[in-house]
């Protein structure tokens, strides 16, 4: 699916994560900022990638500022951002949830 609009989800509070999804052309491109990037950077990217895959998003620029979020939080923020970016926020994709 094509991203229709730049969308954001999440906050910059501790244990949260803020994600901004915008249109891209060269696959999924990450820009990740996290204090735990050394230990969990790849895991965070993989978690978000799996959500984007579920929405069939193939091209996107993904800006992530992580504040030590646990995996369920990362997933929730990614889903919300995807729904908003695809302009599906009134029709939640239950299969993904």
């Amino acid at each position, binding site marked *: 699916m094509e991203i229709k609009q730049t969308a954001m989800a999440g906050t910059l509070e501790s*244990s949260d994560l803020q994600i901004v999804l915008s249109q891209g052309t060269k696959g999924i491109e990450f820009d990740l900022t996290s204090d735990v990037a*050394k*230990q969990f950077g*790849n895991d965070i990217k993989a978690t978000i990638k799996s959500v984007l895959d579920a929405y069939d998003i193939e091209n996107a620029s993904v800006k992530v500022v992580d504040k030590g979020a*646990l995996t369920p939080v990362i997933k929730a923020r990614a889903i919300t951002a995807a729904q908003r970016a695809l302009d599906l926020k009134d029709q939640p994709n239950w299969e993904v949830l």
Partner: protein
Amino acid sequence: MENKVNREIPDQILNDYKYEGFKTTDFGNPEIQRVAPKVTAQVGPSKVVESVKKVVSETLKDGMTISFHHHFREGDFVFNMVMREIIDAGYKDLTLAPSSLTNVMNDIVVEAIQKGVVTNITSSGMRGSLGDAVSHGALKNPVIFRSHGGRARAIEEGKVKIDVAFLGVPNADEMGNANGMNGDAAFGSLGYALIDAQYANKVVLLTDSLMPYPNTPASIKQTQVDYVVKVDKVGDPDKIGSGATRFTKDPKELQIAQMVNDVIVHSPYFKQGFSFQTGSGGAALAVTRFLRKAMIENQIKASFALGGITKPTVDLLNEGLVSRIMDVQDFDKGAASSMKNDANQQEIDASWYADPANKGAMVDKLDVAILSALEIDTKFNVNVMSGSDGVIRGAIGGHQDAATAKLTIISAPLVRGRIATIVPDVTTVITPGDSIDVVVTELGIAINPKRKDLIDSLSKVPGLPIFTIEELQQKAEKLVGKAEPLQFTDRVVALAEYRDGSLIDVIKQVKD
């Protein structure tokens, strides 16, 4: 070689720096030859010199070892004042040997390293921009980290030979009689600085408050002091110690404190005349409050409280629940100001407090120690030095020393954000698992399997969940996920000594 906590210590480090690997927490009864300082005799009538610049040029040469204390903590003006003169005068190859380094000292130390002014450092710890610089290989030689007791030992044995000690004091007379209790920048106990005053070849006092001679009580004596420098201000009173101590309202910290208290109260050590040491963290302060209630209910009084002192401990002294406070440093104003008014709050130096190489340290008589941790591993080894990213950001302090208590409790949350506190292997071993007895987290406790007696006495306590340390580690990992291992280069940037002077671990340069 691999030492007794399974850390690989490069042979080159052992040879170059003449170390043995850590073997045991038991110090034994070796005979030790101490060193004595060189004394330059003088008769006065005054040791006052007009400027830091003058005293630096009269005392300092390239390659010397200089020291400072950290009793002013984040309110320290003296360190920057002296280091500025030293850097501007263009000295080279100095060894910096302070009792510890606080954040306010970071930038000027980084500058001194970059300019080649400082090429060796030994300290209790470091953090912030300095820890970051050292972890990225800024310093030519590895930093040597020592506990407060270990520093006293190293100075007494001559492993650290201080040429010039620059000691800030909130008051002094013209001959160098000084204490930490009076004056605008009073901080209470001078515990760590007393070793420097006793063993440095040249002792320089810096004060903003010249008192009529003779100034008493004198913790540092005129017999030890070479120079007295009058400066405008030695420190910022608001940043020396925190103001009024507030008890934590964090439910997680309170839960941990409650369980720490349960462990103490149901241990064999909670009896008339017991002794304890608590740190300054949120949970540790809350423990003091729970302990107070338990002591009143059980009509039990403590013989002494030890170490770094806070107002809640002073309150116990005032209530008669603690007979003596043995005070090596004060963390807040309440503790600092009470020392001058209460003879039962005794100032002790770092050797008396925690040095294994003397005729008996206070920690040897300690029943209960409550300590914190950045990481604890399934062998009960504790890291208080390197952060979750492998960068130096901590201090040994009295951790290794107090951990020799009969009951050593580590209080720590199971996870901090996404970082597990209980891990399969700590990044840096600072305190060996052999000296740790109980780990308390908000989910429950783990008891060192070597302490079968404690397992027996604590297993019947209602509301005190007991897990193995492996179970706690797995719970943490389930919550945050499995972390990727940190990447280091082969270059050693810091050495961590155990309190006996053996090498317990090395810290390597981080790979970014």
